[in-house]
């Protein structure tokens, strides 16, 4: 066993190349905290531009197959890229692209060759960003219960009607990756279908939802969540991925990845900033990090973030070394969610009420602690609640049922 990622001469050269490139090409301005909605939009445009330059080099979706426009790189190179991007407090992609990440992986497994060729390159090259639309007012945890949003075949097209909630982000989207009901009278798990559609079609309306926070999915905060309405939206039949009424099997791939199956490597940014804050902030003349109570709390927090990191590293390795998986994906999700929620109390107790304010004088830098206070609660829900993660874990461990449930397929095409 070897926890250390060792790098060959060639990989070290790659790191130097990546670092030099990023230093030359990541504008310092993208690290700013936007001051206004306009500024937020400007920053988003800068991140999209960065995404396109990364995409052109194959570094946006590093391990995606080169023949569809991905990087075609191996896991070690991907780790190097992630680590180097992380030094800039960015992730890959450097903006909210949940439908791109999860949709492209699903298309790779379940799409036709024509669909892969048509739909994947623009995602991998950063030309489009994509939202994922699953949840409906009546279907949250019970994704198989999607009913309100329907697609009906009409000649060479499908016509979509309905409503999705708690989806998307700020600054709009180019594409939508969505699950709909294609057979209202059909049996459960045999009546769903997935579509990858253009977000600018007539009949699509987007309305922001006011939430307590928006979580920090995939290292990028979506900023806001939306309700999306579909009113006779006509899409080509080509947009249907995985076959009509065959959507459940596609969903297993999507959910496996969303539930942490892919793993994660990289620093825990909240921890890093918390530690720095406690080292730099003095109370009664003594840095917080030197006060025994606070050291105790920090030790507890650190241990949990380390366990979480290790679960992430393990899942990353399992995925890319193509090892069999069972409960590990939902375990990472469960641990991340429960730790985040617990940490809201632990940080509040350690730091005191300064953790609650975004005030530029009395709060933490950029209000990052205040963001954690809200997001630690909110992040319990997206991509399946803690309860659903536990249901999944139990099924895959094989308790309570005669058959053990397998993890969703996450590999497809020629990697």
């Amino acid at each position, binding site marked *: 066993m070897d926890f250390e990622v060792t790098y060959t001469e060639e990989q070290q050269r790659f790191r130097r190349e990546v670092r030099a490139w990023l230093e030359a090409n990541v504008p310092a301005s993208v690290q700013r905290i936007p001051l206004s909605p306009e500024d937020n939009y400007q920053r988003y445009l800068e991140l999209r531009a960065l995404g396109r330059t990364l995409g052109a080099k194959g570094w946006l979706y590093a391990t995606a197959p080169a023949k569809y426009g991905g990087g075609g790189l191996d896991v070690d190179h991907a780790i190097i890229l992630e680590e180097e991007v992380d030094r800039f407090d960015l992730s890959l992609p450097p903006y909210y692209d949940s439908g791109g990440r999860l949709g492209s992986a699903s298309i790779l497994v379940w799409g036709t060759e024509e669909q892969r060729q048509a739909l994947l390159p623009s995602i991998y090259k950063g030309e489009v960003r994509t939202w994922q639309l699953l949840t409906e007012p009546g279907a949250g945890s019970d994704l198989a219960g999607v009913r309100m949003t329907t697609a009906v075949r009409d000649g060479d097209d499908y016509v979509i009607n309905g409503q999705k909630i708690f989806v998307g982000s700020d600054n709009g989207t180019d594409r939508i990756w969505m699950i709909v009901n294609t057979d209202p009278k059909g049996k459960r798990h045999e009546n769903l279908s997935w579509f990858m559609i253009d977000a600018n079609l007539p009949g699509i309306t987007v309305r922001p939802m006011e939430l307590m926070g928006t979580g920090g999915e995939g290292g990028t905060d979506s900023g806001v969540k939306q309700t999306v309405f579909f009113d006779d939206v006509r899409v080509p039949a080509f947009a249907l991925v995985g076959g009509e009424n065959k959507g459940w099997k596609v969903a297993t791939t999507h959910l496996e990845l969303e539930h942490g199956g892919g793993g994660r490597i990289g620093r825990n940014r909240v921890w890093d900033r918390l530690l720095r804050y406690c080292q730099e902030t003095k109370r009664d003349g003594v840095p917080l990090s030197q006060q025994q109570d606070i050291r105790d709390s920090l030790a507890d927090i650190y241990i949990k973030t380390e366990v979480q990191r290790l679960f992430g590293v393990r899942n990353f390795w399992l995925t890319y070394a193509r090892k069999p998986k069972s409960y590990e994906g939902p375990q990472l999700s469960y641990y991340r969610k429960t730790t985040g929620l617990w940490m809201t109390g632990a940080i509040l107790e350690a730091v005191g009420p300064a953790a609650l304010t975004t005030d530029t004088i009395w709060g933490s830098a950029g209000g990052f602690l205040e963001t954690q206070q809200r997001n630690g609660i909110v992040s319990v*829900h997206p991509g399946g609640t803690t309860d659903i993660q536990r*249901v999944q874990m139990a099924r895959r461990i094989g308790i309570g049922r005669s058959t053990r449930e397998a993890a969703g397929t996450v590999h497809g095409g020629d990697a």
Partner: protein
Amino acid sequence: MDLALTESQEMLRTAARTFMEREAPVDVVVGLQKAESSLEPGLWRKAAKLGWLGILIPTEYGGSGDRLSDAAVLYEELGRGPLPGPFFSSGVLGALTVLEGATEDQRRRLLPGIASGERVLTVAITEPNASWGPAGITLAPQGKNGGYTLNGTKLFVSDATSATDLVVAVRTGEGTNDVSLLHVDARAPGVTTRRLPGFLSWQCEVSFDNVEVERAALLGEAQRGWAALAKALERAVPLLCAYIVGGCQAVYEKSVVYTQTRVQFGVPIGRFQRVQDHVVRLVNHLDSARWTTWEALWKLDTGRPATASVHMAKAVASEAYLEACNAAHEVHAGMGVLIEYGLAAHTQMSRTLFHFLGDPRWHKRRMADALEW
């Protein structure tokens, strides 16, 4: 033994609940959340008319002089909102600080206005060090022409943006407890109040820039401020706990109703044992807060030694509200984080009150001291 409310307490509860349902339903509470001032004039006037602002103020100063446990019935109902406004800040902590710390003259001048709602008095104790003990009070006035000049900052002062009057705890000597209380007009030149932005409810910054006050502004005697505050806090804390109990109760009821009405996988979510577990956890926190609070109130009202109980109640209640909200969020998932639903107002309040008047760690230590272990 009889753990039931008295008949008059039941009547007060009904009146308060009816008021809350009519005047401060969820949409009103949610609508008030972003206001710079927590005081909504219409609600404030009505509450004053009902005698709620003077509930602890003795009749000779214009209040009704009720017992703490009577007031607790009211504060539980307000906490269900959670109703914003300087009800606790002025009507409880403010009034009790004046009662404990002021001269007879000052009481006659200040208390009737607090009872009628014309004066809104908040007590400024904490500073950027966020400490609730006397040692944390460092703001020291300069003596000038027999009066005082104030320069500096008080932080996490609740409801300061709606206050007309401030009682400011200041350092006037070397000994840890050498603290005095100054009565300062909240609108005097040099006083600025500002609600702190973020996930906290009406905790404010109060800055003093060459604020001059007369000698008569000293509340009671010099150096006796901490002793007075400590007495006032001992009686005020359980009422804050009662407000928290009401908050937990509301969060519990919301969660129970949601488990019965929200359907997933073809059944109400209350059928899932995992969801039941969240609600069970929630009610355990609620009841822990309720009974520690009410025993402390009973001890205070009957003149029993209550210090350890008061500290225990706040330690338990602070944690209970935070955990109750966490459990409720697990039950509600997406719906709970939607601002208009109203759970988030409790969550934000639970975080605010976690620390206000001392966090669990602070109170546990004082409890252990009081028990003389």
